[in-house]
């Protein structure tokens, strides 16, 4: 666990640096409230509606595919590290796995899951 302690310290320090930068300036910077000034930017016009609406995210299926592929990559890393030890067996096993994924990927591609516009 000792190796991870420096990481935690670094994160703390980085966070502290950020927070200090954000808040210390507050001592010197001006602060004048103005209704128009603190309205949301919409090219200088009053906004039509609240921005928190249901929004059509069309790349939803790509996002699902992404989850699959990212998991696949997580599998690949330990395999790559241990590649020297597992030899032909490891190569064939991973290739089977990859081929199944590639077939799935090609199927999705042909089905048009990547054409979401």
């Amino acid at each position, binding site marked *: 666990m000792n190796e991870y302690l420096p990481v935690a310290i670094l994160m703390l320090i980085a966070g502290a640096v950020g927070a200090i930068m954000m808040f210390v300036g507050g001592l010197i910077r001006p602060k004048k409230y103005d209704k128009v000034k603190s309205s949301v930017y*919409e*090219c*200088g*016009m009053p*906004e*039509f*509606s609240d*921005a928190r*609406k*249901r*929004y*059509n*995210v*069309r790349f939803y299926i790509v996002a699902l595919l992404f989850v699959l592929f990212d998991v696949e990559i997580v599998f690949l890393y330990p395999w790559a590290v241990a590649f020297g030890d597992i030899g032909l067996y490891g190569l064939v096993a991973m290739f089977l796995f990859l081929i199944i994924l590639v077939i799935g990927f090609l199927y999705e591609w042909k089905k048009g899951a990547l054409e979401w*516009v």
Partner: protein
Amino acid sequence: MQNMNNNVAEIVTVNMGPQHPSTHGVLRLVVDLDGETIVNVTPDVGYLHRGTEKLAENRTYHQFIPLTDRLDYLSPLSNNLAYCLAVEKFFGVKIPERADYMRVIYAELARVASHLVWIATHALDIGAMTVFLYAFRERERVLDMFECATGQRMTSSWIRIGGVRADAPEEFFKLAKDFVDEFDGFVDLYENLLTNNRIWKMRTIGIGMLNADDAQDYGTSGPLMRGAGIDFDLRRDEPYCCYDKFQFEIPTQPEGDTYARYKVRMKELREANKIVAQALENLPEGPIMTDDPRVAMPAHEDVYERMESLIRRFYLISKGFRPPKGETYQGIEAPKGELGFYIVSEGEERPYRLKIRAPSYVNLGVLNHMAQGHMLADLVAIIGTNDVVLGEIDR
């Protein structure tokens, strides 16, 4: 909560402009978005309205010239030219040849300047920042030339009814010759950065489709129309000044997309340059202002020595001239398309009505048609390819 069960996504309405980096001035677009796909675009114009047409009714014909500068402020000399040609049509004034040549030189240089701003901003909108600065470097030289010849970089008001205000100094011709010689190289430079650039092609090919029928139905003109494959150019088809004396091509592209219009304008840059080169070469000697007493000021020497000239000058300055009763229309091929002035005269010193057919205004009308179904990112490309100038739209 009612929406929970239906699949129809909400349409989000967004203001784009007037304070937006790529709406080229104060154009406001109300954009209906489905995701990032454009459902509908409504241009909302008028933020730069100055009442130019109304102002014309209270000014003498001569006094209106400076206001034309402020229409398409990227090519003021083209506007001067269109207006002056329209007024001259009332009288049937014969313009000296040298003045005609100078007008052609100015108008084509204005086209170069205007198209340079177009390529600069169009490329910048799509994200190619460097082209912007290269094009502005060359535009700077054109403006320097205008400054040398007219004393003003932008609002020059140099083309007058009956000719041009004064002859250009020697230095102008030197600057112009150097520029003309080098200019093709500059266009090559921009084309190197863009024409075969894959990302540029991805962003422009198939974007903002406008076929020949729609281009005609919407009344578009200029590069927008020639990019849709319609071979029409007022300089060739209804020649004014002395364009019939020059050799030049009218570039057209049949595809009708943003890339086609890009190619058309790039070729137009080269053609405009060719015309300037020819005009500089064959520039005749002679006066640059007509001696037609109905519109032209008497020469300065005469004013000092002859009573009649003095009176005439005084009259022209204080009262202006009276065109005959009637109406006239003159269109020219401005950088953005057909720029026309329609003037109704009641025989007064001031026009009864003056209507400007601004190419940008008409071209903007086709924006919704071009943008529907594309993405928000394409909208800026489409505004860019439309090449609108708000000074002209709002008048």
